[in-house]
């Protein structure tokens, strides 16, 4: 028994170190391309393109459900982007608060008949379209509640331009973020069918007039921890996958798509958790099925700021939902696994997601449990447990370090030294608690998923309500509690937790 526990623990350690190495390997393989992207973005002037007649117009879709506290600031921020021709399509997904009313009041919008609305992809009926000639870029669509995917579909139907950008109603864009995404698109409009932006945590930063004035690390430990997580994932991870064309997610918080392909794959899938992964998977499948050349690209210099959940409960709910989304999509697209024509997706990206999402939490938790058990049996073997934890910590540290280096070299990061030291500290703490916690959430997410899978059909809807009830209450409670002039903290990164099926 003891030997087994020990061997198991050691094996787990090697697996953790090994997965880290594989990741570094991916990065190493792709560094050439990555450097090229960085060099070209550093040596470009975006203001030049921002006034060019040759830049294709973009429709920005802002699905919003109960976003009353943040929607105005978000729309204001979107209206001052540096971009030649674009429109902002706010889709009010049957909000139960005053989201629509504050929009109508602030921008003095008038109803007009839905002239530019076409039924390209399925979506629930729209009630009205609002405009104001004084704000020619703004369109507000009011529709029946149908979930985020449905709202995005309605947005696609209402969009008049050939490119659509999706953004969460509680995120803020840097003013050059959109033109940076579109520049990547313009480099190869035939093949770059989806471009994702870089999402960062805004908690703790000073925000004013719809933009982040000075980025700072939050004083609360949970958002700060997530900041580290995001920096690692986005810089370390997505750049590598993007270079191999194996990107499975274009973050719902900020991404750009060719509308014609969104329409061809049938738009977003209603009732799907994790619609941002779903749409990208559909695009991959569509293109690979037809053997068309294409790329899904990550653009690290197009920055979008989002608010991270700052209570354990909300974060847990978010992570469980994310995992359920990934699993749902993995299972939906399992037919792509190990089929030669699906190339990187079938052979590398999907298997990696499965391992990372399903097996890695098991390995982490069970490895730790095995070693704890072992040490409990013989307290003199405590060093083994420490070695395990240390290995976890150091692997994380190497990642943090690599991501921060990339950020420093490529983007002249403006993190203050004090914050940097804290990031390193948090990165150490991550291995000693947070990782285990997030592994637990993943397991819970897995449990949610499996439980529901037994009785697929009507179970889905009920569970939506089950879970959604928690964050809705807590968000409301927070809104009334916090009276700061700043944005009230809201959760989400692309997955809006408070999307509920209302029926």
């Amino acid at each position, binding site marked *: 028994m003891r030997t087994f526990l020990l061997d198991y623990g050691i094996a787990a350690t090697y697996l953790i170190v090994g997965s880290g190495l594989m990741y570094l390997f991916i990065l190493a393989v792709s560094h050439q391309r990555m450097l090229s992207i960085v060099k070209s973005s550093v040596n470009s002037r975006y*203001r*030049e393109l*921002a*006034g*060019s*007649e040759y830049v294709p117009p973009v429709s920005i879709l802002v699905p919003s459900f109960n976003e009353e506290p943040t929607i105005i600031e978000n729309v*204001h921020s979107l*209206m*001052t*982007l*540096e*971009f*030649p*021709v674009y429109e902002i399509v706010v889709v009010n997904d049957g909000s139960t608060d005053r989201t629509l009313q504050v929009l109508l009041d602030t921008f003095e919008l008038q109803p007009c008949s839905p002239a530019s609305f076409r039924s390209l992809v399925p979506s629930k009926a729209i009630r009205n379209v609002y405009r104001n000639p*004084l*704000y*020619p870029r703004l369109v507000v669509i009011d529709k029946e509640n149908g979930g985020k995917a449905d709202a995005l579909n309605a947005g696609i139907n209402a969009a008049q331009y050939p490119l659509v950008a999706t953004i969460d109603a509680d995120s803020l864009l840097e*003013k050059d973020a959109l033109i940076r995404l579109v520049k990547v698109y313009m480099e190869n409009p035939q093949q770059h069918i989806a471009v994702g932006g870089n999402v960062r945590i805004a908690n703790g930063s000073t925000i*004013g*007039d*719809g*933009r982040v004035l000075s980025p700072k690390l939050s004083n609360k430990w949970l958002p700060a921890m997530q900041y580290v997580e995001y920096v690692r994932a986005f810089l370390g991870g997505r750049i590598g996958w993007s270079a191999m064309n194996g990107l499975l997610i274009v973050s719902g918080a900020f991404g750009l798509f060719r509308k014609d392909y969104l329409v061809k794959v049938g738009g977003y899938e209603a009732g799907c958790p994790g619609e941002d992964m779903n749409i990208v998977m559909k695009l991959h499948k569509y293109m690979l099925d037809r053997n068309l050349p294409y790329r899904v690209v990550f653009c690290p210099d197009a920055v979008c700021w989002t608010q991270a959940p700052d209570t354990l409960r909300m974060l847990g709910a978010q992570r469980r939902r994310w995992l359920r989304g990934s699993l749902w999509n993995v299972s939906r697209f399992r037919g792509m696994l190990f089929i030669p024509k699906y190339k990187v997706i079938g052979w590398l990206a999907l298997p990696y997601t499965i391992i990372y999402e399903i097996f890695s939490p098991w390995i982490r938790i069970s490895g730790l449990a095995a070693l704890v058990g072992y040490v409990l049996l013989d307290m003199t073997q405590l060093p083994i447990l420490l070695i395990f934890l240390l290995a976890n910590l150091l692997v994380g540290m190497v990642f943090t370090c690599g991501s921060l280096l990339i950020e420093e070299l490529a983007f002249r990061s403006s993190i203050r030294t004090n914050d940097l030291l804290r990031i390193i500290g948090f990165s150490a703490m991550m291995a000693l608690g947070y990782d285990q916690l997030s592994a637990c959430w993943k397991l819970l997410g897995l449990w949610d998923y499996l439980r529901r899978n037994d009785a697929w059909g009507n179970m889905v809807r009920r569970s939506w309500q089950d879970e959604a009830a928690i964050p809705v209450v807590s968000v409301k409670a927070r809104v009334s509690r916090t009276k700061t002039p700043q944005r009230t903290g809201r959760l989400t990164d692309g997955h809006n937790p408070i999307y509920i099926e209302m029926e």
Partner: protein
Amino acid sequence: MNTVYPAESGLTQRLFAQVNDTLKAPWTECGVIAASTHGINRHLLHNFAARLNKDGENPAVQVEYEEDTGCVVFLLPGQSLASTHFTALSAKNLLQDADLLIGGMSVAGFSESDPPTEKAMNDFVSFLDGSEPSEIAVYHGQPRASEAPTVVMIDPNADLLEFLNIRLGLQGYDVMPAQDGKEGLRLVASFQPDLVITELALPALDGYQIIHRIRNSPNRDCQVVVLTDQAVEQDICKCFELGAADVIKKPFSPKELEARLKRLLN
């Protein structure tokens, strides 16, 4: 004349005479640099003159220290305003290295075709008092601040603001820069400017809103000129619809901008 400008001093008289003398002789142009300094002895003055003339470019530099006003005056026969201004950079270095500079500096250029009047000379001398410490103010015959048309300029680009601030200042405008829309509107409300120059893509409040609000404010005479990167056909039309007086696309020619402002304000 003397009664109108109480600031007139012996310095003005002497400078006026000297510059006019210089312009009578072989020179067609004459530059003047003045700086508020501590007392400087004759030896050091000679030294300065020699150093400013080290490349033989300023053959007849005259340096004098005016005891009564506490300032040093460099007379540069044969130099245009531009080269006087340039020489002033070196002169300032000299004065600073010797730890003599206590106030501001001012430069002016006069030519045969545009000889100094006593009034101009007096304006120039009073410029010295008005200039910020260690700043080099350029006298260009511009009117005093009270007569100058006021311009509020809104642009997020600080470099551009600085550049145009100086350029338009020399053209005789009183320029108030703002880096975002809200700040800009605040300036407009408190100073009632004659003209506003704005970029369209501004943080907080975009250019359209600014045009719209100014057109619908009590200060309706205020003209709005849009100076923007973001001038595609659609934007330009929209600006004019809202009542902008002119739209200029960046990169722009400052010369053209100055000409257009002149037309709008006359």
